């Protein structure tokens, strides 16, 4: 039982980061109908920027802010400078360009910073708080949860309470109508990418201290897990991203803990199939549109 409680808490804190990263994927999907395979590589770039600055200044907070701003800029840049020009003759073109971007960004980061792992900074004590002899959550885990919860709340406020949020939603759901109502859909698209990249950047900065460290490929595995999380929840649903993230986090923890680390990919596949065969559009998929 102790092990179960332990694994549950472990899974929850992992799940929080997957949730944040999945949220980034959902944001872009909703805004542009693209699964951004470059999300991980973009988060790595911003994480390196944060690392450089916080190392130079000696402040975690400043680095964190750099990641935020860097994400905003990078997201906007990728949309404005690249994705906007991708022909939509076939929906795979976006995927291929994103993959090309992954190679390019990874290589550039590798050229500038080298392939060594670097220790990521962490603002808090990472030792777990024990309850009844079972180590549950560290202050850092709480920080992760707090940050992810803040992101979710801020996004919810942005989308439901502000004019910009309303414009973004309208532009995503009904671009043409939105243009007729004076919404600059292109700008909303850029903003969507930028926001998603910010969320991805934050997720990246959050997860790195719990991973191997900073490295050009640091987010590869995180991306795969988060993509699974987003799919399980339903790509159109921010709530789904959070729930999906937690589900994947828990599954990975339980399987690692009880069946062995090697089996986790099989477990992820099993969860995907179990969920998608019942609900082909993810847990939080909406009603299916009439086809005839």
């Amino acid at each position: 039982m102790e092990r179960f409680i332990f694994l549950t808490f472990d899974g929850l804190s992992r799940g929080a980061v997957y949730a944040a990263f999945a949220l980034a994927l959902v944001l872009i999907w909703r805004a542009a109908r693209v699964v951004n395979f470059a999300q991980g590589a973009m988060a790595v770039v911003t994480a390196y920027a944060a690392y450089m600055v916080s190392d130079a200044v000696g402040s975690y907070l400043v680095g964190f802010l750099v990641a935020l701003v860097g994400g905003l800029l990078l997201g906007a840049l990728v949309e404005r400078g690249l994705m906007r020009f991708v022909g939509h003759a076939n929906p795979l073109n976006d995927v291929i360009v994103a993959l090309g971007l992954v190679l390019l960004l990874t290589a550039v980061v590798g050229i500038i910073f080298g392939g060594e792992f670097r220790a990521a900074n962490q603002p808090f004590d990472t030792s777990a708080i024990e309850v009844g002899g079972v180590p549950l959550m560290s202050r850092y885990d709480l920080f992760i949860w707090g940050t992810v919860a803040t992101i979710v709340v801020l996004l919810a406020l942005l989308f439901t309470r502000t004019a910009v949020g309303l414009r973004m939603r309208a532009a995503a759901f009904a671009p043409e109508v939105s243009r007729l109502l004076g919404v600059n859909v292109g700008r909303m698209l850029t903003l969507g990418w930028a926001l998603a990249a910010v969320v991805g950047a934050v997720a990246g900065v959050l997860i790195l201290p719990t991973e191997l460290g900073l490295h050009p490929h640091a987010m590869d595995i995180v991306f795969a897990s988060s993509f699974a999380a987003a799919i399980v929840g339903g790509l159109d649903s921010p709530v789904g991203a959070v729930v999906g993230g937690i589900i994947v986090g828990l599954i990975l923890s339980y399987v690692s803990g009880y069946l062995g680390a090697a089996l986790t990919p099989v477990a992820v596949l099993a969860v995907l199939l179990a969920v998608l065969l019942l609900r082909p559009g993810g847990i939080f998929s909406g009603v299916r549109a009439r086809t005839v």
Partner: protein
Amino acid sequence: MSTTKVRPARSPISRFVTPRPTGPRRGSTLLRHLLWVAVGAVAVYFVSYGIDPFRNYQLATVAAYLCVTAGLTMLTGLNGQLSLGHGALMACGAYTVALAQNEFSDRGVLGAWALPVSLALGVLVAALAGALIGVCAARLRGPYLAGVTLAVALVVPAFTTRFAGLFNADQGLSVYVDPAPAALGPYFPPERWQAWIAIGAAMLSLLIVANLVHSRYGRAFKAVRDDEVAAKLAGIHVARTQVLAFVVSAGCAGLGGGVLAVISQSVSPSVFGLTLSLNLLLAIVLGGLGSLFGAAWGALLLVLLPYLTTQVTRGLELSPGLANKLEGNLPLAIFGLTLIIVMLVAPGGIQDAFRALGRTVRRRF
């Protein structure tokens, strides 16, 4: 009773578009395709004599990938199903071939028949795996299918580690392959023999896919891709058609994987990781989705592009410090940049660009 009279087309576009003749032609599909396979085989025969062993090995690798891209472009291009997991299906074929060949060798029952039997087993196992995935895939669309197949691509190492006794985990298996027949002479390079085997398999794969595409099944694939409702009303069983496309394409992947195992004389899980699956997708899209030609371009690119980028960057004279940083990374950056540029310049892929070029040239002259 009034009969309808033929009305001239009101729109002038039909004048500009010369549709490629499709649908059944007189004569035998098999003979027609066989003829081209024969032409290809003869061409390759001479080419394989004209090039050095390393080119032959590259040719063999291109052919192995071609087995897979031919099937994948049918699945993704013609049937509209995205698969990020074909690397795993290749692994099915490769491991089956490895186990079968080694079993034959251990029992000392090798002969000219052994390799084809092993490859056939590889195709069978991959097709069965493809059927399993296909049944699930038939319910899924777009990114959801991508997500599941991506997860499939990631399970290969898990299986080889879980059943390490059979698959020898990360280290993989070496594959026993008979040397080239003695009749070919003592100095016959093994790479040329490998190229022949691979080309044979690729031709078979192309033949089967071409036959299928030109049959009513090929029509059904496209119909399902274009409009599922109309396809159902036309009497096409949509799910069954999708599963069929997956099975055939998986069989091709199994053949390609088996051939890869044979020419490299080894199999290991990290060969068949996500990178390979993504590369296959890159290949068919860059080559030109849905065309067997595009599949050939794609397979060629998969081998040549990394090779050329490395060769290009090798020529640079750099200080040791800079060279250490650029080595490996620079070719990757060029590779990535190439992908992006090709997609921006020729969104329909290479084959499409050539077709457009051909049209322009024809119109000019």
